[in-house]
């Protein structure tokens, strides 16, 4: 945050709200950074000579005579290989000591990759979790969030996925992360000996909420450096995007914008899309894959944040507590990976698509049987078998503590089919049945 020599210092602020200040200044560029009374701020509106700044850390303690200095440039991050293994705050400043990073300063929130230059994602990311690999296979260049209630172990699952994913770099963007969770991530990565390939940008609950708005752009600027310049496979973890959206709502509210659904700004879709669409498979072999967390309130996916997210991301992974087995599972009904079609049955065994669909269909039959049971009706023989299947399926394949290869997952599914059903009931293409049915 250096200031240039002979820079004009303004000392008269006209208006102060909770998040913004307005003053008279000239020669100011849109989106430019400034320091207001020692706090970092960004230009959000210019009307003639009246400039409105959003103060990231809040305006507490600022006075009408606080010093305002414009930096003449938008937020930037210095990028180099030395980013690896380091922890930064939302402004890209190292936390926990250490030298600042030297390197090329790049504007964050830069331009879009030309869609015509993109490559179709086709490289599978194996996580060992059957709820993902079997039912909702993820590929490099994909963007997919976990939809989870705040009490569910989403950060644990995400850390597992990240470590098993064989990425060259893992970039953690923590927004409103509790200090405990932050330390958890740090410890898990450290224990796995992976710290040297991790870069973290963290805004914890102890930091001002509006600062969070910078975190995804910082994380993705670092990701683009490694993916575009170095051709690396980069995995970006963003947790929790709901808290990011909350910060957007705070700012838009303070700017007197008319709120749309659920008090969120009308531009929520575009704001979220700008972040998620940075996920890309590049022609040089590098890629950015984004795995995010969107916390829900009581599993409600119609709220504006999960709803808009679902329309942007390539699917979602839905965590649910399965009362029958007492485990957290990846819900096969509501989870979806849109890019799985690019790899299943192509990069995995040929029976993968049909086995996957048959499992889910039979699991749906079990759900119907369960409803019948709850309503006090007698169950047919088929219903009984479906219920038993569902229990095994949930425990052996859907639970998040599974860690097996995809071929083993398929074999497990065939074993369950043969154990509980006839060939007709499974309704898979005849030639696959002939080849894989376990007598």
């Amino acid at each position: 945050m250096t200031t240039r020599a002979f820079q004009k210092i303004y000392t008269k602020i006209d208006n102060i709200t909770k998040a913004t200040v307005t003053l008279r200044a000239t020669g100011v560029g849109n989106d430019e950074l400034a320091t207001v009374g020692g706090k970092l701020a960004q230009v959000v509106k210019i009307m003639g000579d009246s400039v409105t700044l959003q103060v990231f850390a809040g305006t507490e303690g600022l006075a009408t005579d606080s010093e305002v200095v414009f930096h003449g440039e938008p937020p930037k991050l210095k990028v180099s290989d030395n980013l690896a293994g380091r922890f930064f705050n939302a402004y890209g400043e190292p936390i926990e000591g250490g030298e600042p990073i030297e390197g090329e300063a790049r504007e964050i929130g830069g331009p879009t990759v030309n869609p015509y230059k993109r490559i179709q994602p086709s490289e599978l990311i194996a996580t060992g979790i059957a709820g993902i690999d079997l039912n909702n296979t993820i590929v490099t260049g994909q963007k997919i969030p976990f939809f989870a209630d705040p009490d569910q172990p989403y950060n644990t699952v995400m850390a597992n996925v990240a470590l098993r994913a064989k990425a060259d770099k893992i970039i953690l963007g923590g927004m409103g992360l509790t200090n405990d969770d932050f330390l958890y991530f740090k410890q898990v990565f450290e224990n796995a000996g992976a710290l040297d390939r991790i870069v973290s940008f963290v805004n914890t609950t102890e930091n001002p909420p509006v600062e969070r708005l910078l975190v995804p752009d910082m994380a993705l600027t670092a990701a683009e450096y490694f993916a575009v310049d170095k051709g690396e496979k980069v995995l970006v973890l963003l947790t929790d995007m709901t808290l990011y959206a909350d910060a957007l709502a705070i700012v838009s509210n303070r700017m007197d914008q008319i709120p749309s659904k659920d008090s969120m700004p009308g531009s929520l879709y575009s704001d979220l899309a700008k972040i998620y669409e940075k996920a890309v498979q590049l022609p040089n072999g590098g890629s950015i894959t984004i795995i995010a967390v969107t916390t829900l309130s009581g599993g409600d996916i119609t709220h504006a944040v999960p709803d808009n997210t679902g329309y942007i991301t390539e699917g979602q992974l839905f965590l649910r507590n399965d009362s029958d087995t007492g485990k957290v599972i990846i819900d096969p009904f509501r989870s979806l990976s849109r890019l799985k079609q690019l790899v299943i049955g192509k990069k995995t065994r040929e029976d993968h698509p049909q086995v996957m669909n048959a499992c889910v269909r039979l699991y749906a039959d079990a759900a119907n049987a369960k409803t019948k049971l709850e309503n006090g009706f007698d169950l047919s023989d088929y219903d009984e078998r479906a219920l038993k299947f569902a229990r095994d399926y949930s425990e052996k394949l859907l639970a998040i503590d599974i860690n097996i290869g995809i071929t083993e997952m398929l074999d497990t599914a065939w074993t369950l089919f043969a154990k509980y059903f006839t060939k007709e009931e499974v309704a898979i293409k005849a030639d696959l049945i002939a080849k894989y049915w376990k007598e």
Partner: protein
Amino acid sequence: MKTTGRVNGIISNIVIVKADGAVGQNEICHVYCDDTKMMAEVIKVVGDDAYVQVFDSTRGLKIGDKVEFEGHMLEATLAPGLLSRNYDGLQNDLAKMDSLFIERGSITDPVDFDRKWEFKPLAKVGDKVSAGSWLGEVQEQWVAHKIMVPFVMTGKYTVKSIVEAGEYTVNKTVAVLADADGGEHPVTMVQRWPVKQAIRCYAEKPRPSRVMETGVRAIDTFNPLAEGGTGFIPGPFGAGKTVLQHAISKQADADIIIMIACGERANEVVEIFKEFPELVDPHTGHKLMERTIIICNTSNMPVAAREASVYTGMTIGEYYRSMGLKVLVMADSTSRWAQALREMSNRLEELPGQDAFPMDLSAIISNFYSRAGLVKLNNGQTGSVTFLGTVSPAGGNLKEPVTESTKKAARCFYALSQNRADSKRYPAIDPLESYSKYLEYPEVEEYLGEKIEKDWVSLVYRGKTIVQRGKEANDQINILGDDGVPVEYHERFWKSELIDFVVLQQDAFDDIDANCPMERQQMMYKMVLGICDRSFDFADFEACSKFFKGLINLFRQMNYSEWKSEKFYDYQRQIEKYVSEQSK
């Protein structure tokens, strides 16, 4: 002298410009930020202040920066060479951009101005012509691309001279037209048209009377889309809107396909970029890309250009329609377009309507849909633009402004249901909620009666009734229990399941099942109806469900088998045997 101005205010991508002269509503201007020239459109004028929406990021823009007004509205460039191209919302050719990232102010030509086309005159000296009249043609891919009197030329003209057959670039004058006063107007192969206005150079716009085949059974058999008609597909995320649209774009029986990726995922567009050049159009045997134009404004591209993208696509569609071609325009998703309107309206501090959308949303949507249609050209030929849009209702709730406004404008409604998607019944088109108004058109009924078979429409309604009754029976079963209802209820329910599994469900990822020609649809549908007409004698409900599950399995194998192959007929025989053994 162009009007110029200076930047006097910046709120995100809305810029307030103090202008030194006359400014028109929707006029295009260029805003200069350092060395970068960014396009913008006037959306409001207050005194000397023009409010312009910039089609790019305004980062770094300063008060006092220069603005130049262009004196025309946002225009599409219409000329040979549009096919197979991949444009952004402002018709910049994405393939011509060099860098990996789309740099601010990137502008590329929509067509090749150097390329020579083999021009063949159609008009003669002395011919009376008017806007839209065919003067000549060039061969673009396999389409006879007509060179027309520019649509902006109102009034009557006489052909004064026309060049001989030969090779010309698009900017070369190919004809000179004389107006009533003897004024001369040179005409080239390229013309421009303001995208927000409909091209109306045709004699009349009759009601649609033919059906556009899509290869999707749930559409063609149950709720057909008319050629020149309109339809929309609302559905929550994950219900399969995009997969369905892609399937239609690959299979539809149209001459030209225009796909507008409007504020959606870039990876989905990449899929089209990659697949279409390889896939073959089942109707003509040409490569799909040869008949396709992609307008791509993904969700992270500038919001204002997203709004423009649907108009650009529609204008190009109308251009090809004027050549007597059958055009299908598809937009995924129109909700993103509506959201772009909302963002603008919000920044302009207009009083909001429902869900903060602009008050005139409904009017804007119906005005857009009305640009589709079958037209009779002045020379007696017909052309059509069929429009199919998707809607992404917030929270999957169909009672939201975009869905409701679209419902008023579009004639076909393909509701995608979350329940069907959850149980992987794809395409998730709800058979009871969805409708096609075209089934009620006598001219469509007559057309289907001739094309498929007599009384086809009444067969369709019969199938719908069976599905309806099956649902009612299922509700009873769920309330009273499997044993609490007569076996006939189960039979009724399973007959509707048979239609569901065999006709309505279709595997978009299976090479054979993905595209079902009408002839095959007819045969399968009649086979299924034939079984539904029979009555069976089941000992109990378990026997009933067992029988139908077995039957459905056989039918599914048949759907997966190649049309009229030995395997296909083998399954048909198996089904006949299986059914006759069970019949009364």
